[in-house]
């Protein structure tokens, strides 16, 4: 029981102590004005217990190390103080005014924030900056507490680039150099740089690089220098690209303060493990200019020569043809796109076989790339292969250069076997069903050979023949009209017709009448009437007598009065031939006979 009370009292005491304490959370820097690349430390210190530390954004600065957390507890005169410190080592990227934002932390559920710190970054001296900037991060070896400043003066890695302002595709050499003034016992490569955005290749092929040491004086201090890694880079896109740092871990031997006489005499040293990183280098990559960029530009940057040749100039269709295009020079040879070619469309072409021969002599990429095009002309004819064109950008003159080969003339003879190549709609013409084995035979008959240019249709003759029918019809129409006009009066027509017949038969009688020969006249009249009847009734003249006439006329339904009249007239004429008659003139008899004939004509 007592024990419990004791523990409780202690805890309460602790709590009172904590509450009594004035908890502060501050951010501090050594100085607010720094040079570009100069490294400095920002520490967020809390005296008390806190949790969930949230770091501010360090815009404009690069975090070289951190957060490094240290806790300490001091007990002075019975009052115990705890403090937590989160520290960062930063370096400024560029000059200007920057603000280190507030860091935040939870203490007993309450959020605490630091005050933002305004930093003024000035342009630093390059050498100074270089040297200061190089040892960026030091992780303290677990055993030994080694301050960064201690080692950085004596051991650092520097990334040396030959240019920082290049065109896209222009070669850059990066040399990671180790500067040291201390003895290195061990070294180990932690991390090879990623080199994002670059096409990279080691300048030395040898796997195990032989380190050559030389001495170099930097700012009046003599260092042993060795090239760790040499890399050739080609920026793949424009913009500010960063060459990643190279990380290495070294174990170095350091002088240690002597603790006793013996150590003083023999010299005291300790082995320290140091992690080093090189400083990242920003390369400003300019895009290739748009002005004057050739259409077929394939990304070649450097200086090149073009050489093209063809193995044959005359061949048969369907035979193979080789076109070799060789690009020689220094630059990003392995990064070319395929050369744009313009072969005749009837050439079957295959993707070129590409052979690179690259040398890295003297740290420059040079060599040649060979494109081997296989072409197969499919049809006979004389073809011209357009000149092969190759464009590159020369960064030295900042100009595009277009190289051109001479055009090639190919004479293609007719091949042994014609292969159908569908140039238009490939492979979608359906197989034609077998119609027959051969063409149809010539026409032997019905040839209708005509002289050329005698097109019948549309000719004058054609139209004349065409009009023949209608013209005939019109003629017929006119004829019918005329005919109708003349036949309109039926009586007149009939009398004209009848008198014509009568006149024909009575012609002799009329002649006698004019000569006043009465006997002859009546005889002629008699004969005329008989003749007419014989003709009309189709009875031979010899068989004709009054009874026959009357009978026949009756059978033809001639009126009785007319028959009587006819018989009277015939009797009268018969009588008048032998005896003179009176009371009726010869003319009257003639008219009577004529009328009678007309009447008979009407009735039959």
């Amino acid at each position: 029981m007592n024990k419990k009370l004791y523990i409780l009292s202690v805890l309460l005491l602790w709590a009172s102590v904590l509450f009594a304490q004035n908890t502060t959370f501050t951010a501090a820097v050594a100085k607010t004005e720094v040079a570009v690349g100069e490294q400095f430390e920002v520490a967020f210190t809390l005296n008390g217990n806190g949790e969930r530390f949230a770091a501010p954004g360090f815009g404009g600065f690069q975090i070289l190390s951190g957060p490094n957390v240290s806790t300490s507890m001091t007990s002075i005169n019975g009052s115990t103080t705890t403090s937590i410190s989160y520290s960062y080592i930063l370096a400024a990227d560029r000059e200007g005014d920057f603000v280190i934002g507030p860091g935040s932390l939870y203490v007993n559920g309450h959020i605490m924030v630091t005050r933002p710190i305004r930093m003024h970054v000035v342009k630093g001296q390059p050498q100074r900056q270089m040297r200061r900037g190089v040892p960026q991060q030091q992780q303290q070896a677990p055993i030994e507490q080694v301050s960064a400043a201690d080692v950085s003066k004596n051991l650092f890695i520097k990334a040396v680039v030959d240019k920082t302002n290049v065109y896209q595709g222009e070669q850059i050499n990066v040399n990671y150099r180790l500067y040291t003034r201390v003895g290195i016992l061990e070294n180990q490569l932690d991390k090879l740089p990623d080199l994002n955005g670059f096409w990279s290749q080691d300048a030395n092929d040898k796997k195990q690089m032989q380190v050559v040491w030389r001495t170099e004086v930097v700012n009046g201090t003599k260092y042993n220098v060795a090239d760790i890694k040499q890399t050739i880079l080609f920026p793949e896109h424009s913009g500010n690209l960063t060459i990643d740092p190279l990380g290495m871990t070294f174990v170095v031997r350091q002088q240690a303060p002597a603790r006793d006489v013996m150590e003083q005499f023999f010299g005291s040293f300790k082995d320290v493990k140091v992690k080093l990183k090189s400083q990242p280098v920003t390369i400003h990559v300019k895009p290739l200019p748009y002005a004057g960029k050739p259409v077929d530009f394939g990304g070649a940057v450097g200086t090149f020569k073009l050489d093209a040749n063809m193995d044959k100039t005359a061949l048969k269709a369907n035979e193979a043809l080789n076109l070799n295009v060789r690009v020689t020079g220094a630059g990003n040879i392995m990064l070319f796109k395929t050369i744009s070619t313009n072969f005749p469309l009837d050439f079957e072409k295959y993707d070129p076989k590409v052979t690179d021969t690259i040398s890295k002599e003297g740290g420059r990429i040079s060599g040649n790339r060979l494109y081997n095009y296989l072409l197969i002309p499919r049809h006979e004819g004389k073809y011209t292969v357009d000149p092969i064109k190759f464009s590159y950008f020369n960064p030295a003159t900042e100009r595009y250069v277009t190289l051109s080969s001479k055009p090639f003339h190919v004479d293609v003879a007719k091949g042994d076997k014609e292969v159908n190549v569908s140039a238009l709609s490939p492979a979608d013409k359906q197989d034609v069903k077998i119609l027959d084995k051969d063409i149809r035979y010539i026409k032997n008959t019905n040839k209708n050979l005509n002289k050329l240019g005698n097109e019948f249709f549309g000719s004058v003759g054609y139209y004349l023949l065409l009009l023949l029918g209608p013209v005939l019809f019109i003629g017929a129409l006119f004829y019918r009209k005329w005919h109708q006009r003349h036949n309109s009066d039926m009586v007149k027509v009939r009398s004209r017709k009848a008198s014509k017949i009568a006149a024909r038969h009575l012609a002799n009688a009329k002649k006698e009448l004019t000569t006043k020969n009465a006997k002859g006249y009546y005889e002629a009249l008699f004969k005329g009437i008989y003749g007419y009847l014989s003709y009309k009734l189709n009875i031979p003249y010899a068989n004709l007598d009054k009874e026959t006439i009357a009978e026949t006329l009756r059978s033809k339904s001639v009126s009785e009065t007319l028959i009587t009249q006819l018989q009277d007239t015939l009797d009268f004429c018969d009588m008048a031939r032998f005896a003179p008659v009176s009371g009726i003139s010869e003319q009257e008899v003639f008219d009577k006979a004529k009328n009678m004939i007309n009447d008979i004509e009407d009735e039959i």
Partner: protein
Amino acid sequence: MKYKHFLYLLIFLISPLLSFANKDLMADAQYAKGQYKEARVSYQALLNEGYQSAALYFNMGNACYKLDDIPSAILYYEKARHLSPADEDINFNIRFANQKTTDKIDEAPEFFLNKWWHGFILMFSLSTLSILSIVFIFLSSLVLIGYLFTRSVVLKKTSFYISIVLFAIGLVFIFMGNRQSAYFDSHKQAIVFTSTVTVKSSPASAAKTLFVIHEGTKVDVLETISNRIKIKLANGSEGWIGAGDVKEI
């Protein structure tokens, strides 16, 4: 003595006729014997003399085909088709010869009304149509004349209607002939004779190449600008080529 002169005159008049008949028979005989080269020369001689007929062109095309000169064969077949559009032999041989050409062109499907229309106006050859139209118009006139002069009412009615029908048929034939002639006049076609022709997008020779056609392909000639012609393929593709690369049908 007199009839002798007359005989000479007769021989003088008939001999050219006989000569073409002879040549024609000779050519046919040569073809039958398989002497295609000679037959072709003989047919060519006839053509040079200015004779033409569907059969002559057809036979010439056959001779060319046998000599493996496909473009010429197609050209002569097409000429024969102009004179006799509905001839099955000619159309068959055109199809057959087209199988031997390099370019496989899918004909763009023709609108069915268009197809019917062309089938209709190309049903008879132009000479057949002209004769038919004359005959029908003439018959119609004769029947109409009969109508004028007959007295029977029944005959009059019948003849009138028959005449109208005949006249209408005659008019249709004239119309068909007219359309056919216009079709061939407006529808200029040509056969490619150069083994490979690159078709450009404009008359300038520096123009972009659109596609490539080969000998034997039939193209529609749309327009001509100084030695360059605009062509259209059966599948609807258009472009410009040199006028010298083709021979017009």
